[in-house]
């Protein structure tokens, strides 16, 4: 009976019902897209770093695992010392630079030979390797997304580069230039942001890490095998705060809309509440009716929100093919829980008011 009544109630005011459902859907979409975007970018970055094929990564002291946050404070000569450590097969210094021209990208400044030794080399879809100071390599996703072809000019970092080749994705960055060029453009002469190291055998990683830690105490030395698991938002305090803030904002939207919607509903249905009370409905019954209606609205909002999330994801990926947005099942459940809890909290005050209404006053309500 309650289900029937709820269905009739939500259909009785279709505009208000739609607005409430859309607000909950926006809440769910906001949560899923913000989390999906951040975790997608992190996992994508991590996979690409892992894809380099190195065993160890060396960064300056206190450097973030999110390498784009780090500058270039390491002298490049460190690479020579690292190369002399026993069981180190190859060392590839890399200079990182953020590019904000036509989107956000990380550019790797590499020494092609050492990078090839560590990574096993690029797989070329088209073109050739870096040779000249103005050469740039782009990965296939970037080329597809930005419709870039070999031989074209690409304007990044305020500089015109010649697209020398298109390579298979998954080797750290989407854009690669010569290290010397990037050092020149970023004013970081003889500096590197990170050293990727390949051991003779992967099982020698721990031993080599020990040796590096002795040689460069306080430097961040990490096995790349663990990198993917480290690249989570919880290891990036600022990002975690951002995600929490966005979730709070989304939950706040849901809370306020449900509060307003249900408050309006009980004001409008004051006489109906009086009728229910005259029929002997308890306070609990009235609270149950209102909260059940809220849950019904939230469930509809969640379904719409999930559909909207996948639509927004598709739109984003169509507009920015290099983005990764992960809509994880665990976050689908969490977003649903956030929407329902926010809705129930928002509806609890109107429900409380309704349950305590004086039946005589309610029946006399015009």
């Amino acid at each position, binding site marked *: 009976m309650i289900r029937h009544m709820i269905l*009739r109630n939500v259909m009785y005011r279709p505009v208000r019902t739609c607005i409430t459902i859309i607000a909950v859907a926006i809440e769910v979409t906001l949560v899923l897209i913000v989390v999906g975007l951040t975790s997608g970018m992190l996992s994508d970055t991590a996979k690409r770093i892992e894809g380099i094929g190195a065993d160890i990564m060396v960064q300056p002291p206190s450097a973030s695992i999110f390498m784009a946050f780090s500058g270039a404070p390491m002298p490049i000569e460190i690479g020579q010392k690292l190369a002399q450590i026993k069981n180190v097969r190859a060392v590839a210094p890399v200079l990182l630079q953020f590019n904000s021209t036509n989107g956000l990208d990380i550019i790797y400044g590499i020494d092609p030979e050492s990078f090839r030794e560590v990574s096993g080399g690029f797989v070329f879809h088209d073109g050739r390797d870096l040779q000249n100071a103005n050469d740039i390599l782009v990965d296939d996703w970037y080329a597809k997304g930005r419709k870039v072809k070999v031989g074209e000019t690409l304007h990044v970092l305020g500089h015109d580069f010649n697209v020398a080749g298109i390579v298979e994705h998954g080797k750290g960055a989407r854009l690669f230039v010569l290290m010397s060029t990037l050092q020149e453009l970023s004013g970081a002469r003889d500096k590197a942001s990170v050293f990727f190291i390949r051991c003779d055998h992967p099982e020698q990683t721990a031993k080599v890490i020990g040796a590096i830690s002795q040689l460069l105490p306080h430097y961040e030395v990490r096995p790349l095998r663990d990198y993917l698991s480290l690249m989570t938002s919880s290891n990036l305090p600022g990002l975690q705060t951002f995600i929490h803030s966005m979730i709070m904002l989304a939950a706040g939207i849901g809370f306020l809309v449900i509060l307003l919607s249900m408050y309006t509903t009980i004001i409008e249905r004051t006489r109906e509440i009086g009728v229910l009370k005259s029929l*002997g*409905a308890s306070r609990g019954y009235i609270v149950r009716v209102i909260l059940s209606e809220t849950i019904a609205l939230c469930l509809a909002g969640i379904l719409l929100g999930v559909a909207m999330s996948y639509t927004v994801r598709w739109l984003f990926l169509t507009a920015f093919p290099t983005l990764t947005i992960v809509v994880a099942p665990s976050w689908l459940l969490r977003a649903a829980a956030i929407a329902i809890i926010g809705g129930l909290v928002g509806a609890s005050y109107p429900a409380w008011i309704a349950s305590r209404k004086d039946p*005589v006053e309610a029946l006399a309500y015009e």
Partner: protein
Amino acid sequence: MEPILKTENLWKIYRAGRLDVAALRGVNVDVYPGEFVSVMGPSGCGKSTLLHVIGGLSQASRGRVLLDGNDLAALGDAGRTLLRRHKVGFVFQRFNLLPTLNAKGNIALAQHIHGDGFDPHRFDVVTRMLGLTDRLDHRPSELSGGEQQRVAIARAIINEPKIVLADEPTGNLDTKNSENVLGLLRQLNKDLGQTIVMITHNPEAAAYGNRVLHMRDGLVVDGASAN
């Protein structure tokens, strides 16, 4: 025979700003099972207040209300809610049907709140008696005033209450529908032995009852007891 409803020195005082206004000033009434009592009196004499207090919708300020042996004055909100659910059926002047539900839903809602679930046999008997069988799928907005009041009566009696309290049940109806509704109430009283207390302004309507109780200034001035 014990009265089904008995009030003893019943007072109801409202607070209006800084003033206390006594709507009931020591009402003593007995209603016996199977009676159809009409309550008459001028506006503001306390008729509706009496109905609200004896139906457990509001609490008495002083005195006792014994409904089927239960003292309403001693019951809290939850106790009075239970009493309304199991022993009282209300019929209002403005019908007070839920606009979102059809006639069937409005009647079945009372059964649902009562807690025994939908009883198709009782439902069938009541709707047939009230001539509602072909109007059950219609919403209140699609029913005439007379039909709406018949649905409200069906809702009031569906759970076989000890007493039906009707507050100006014909106040919003034309003459023909008023006669129809009053006839139905009398039929319920005669055929089913349903105890009814009805408030009305109209002496003709009051005549449908088998006792008329007159109120003035918060007091019952005539007809307080069948004796």
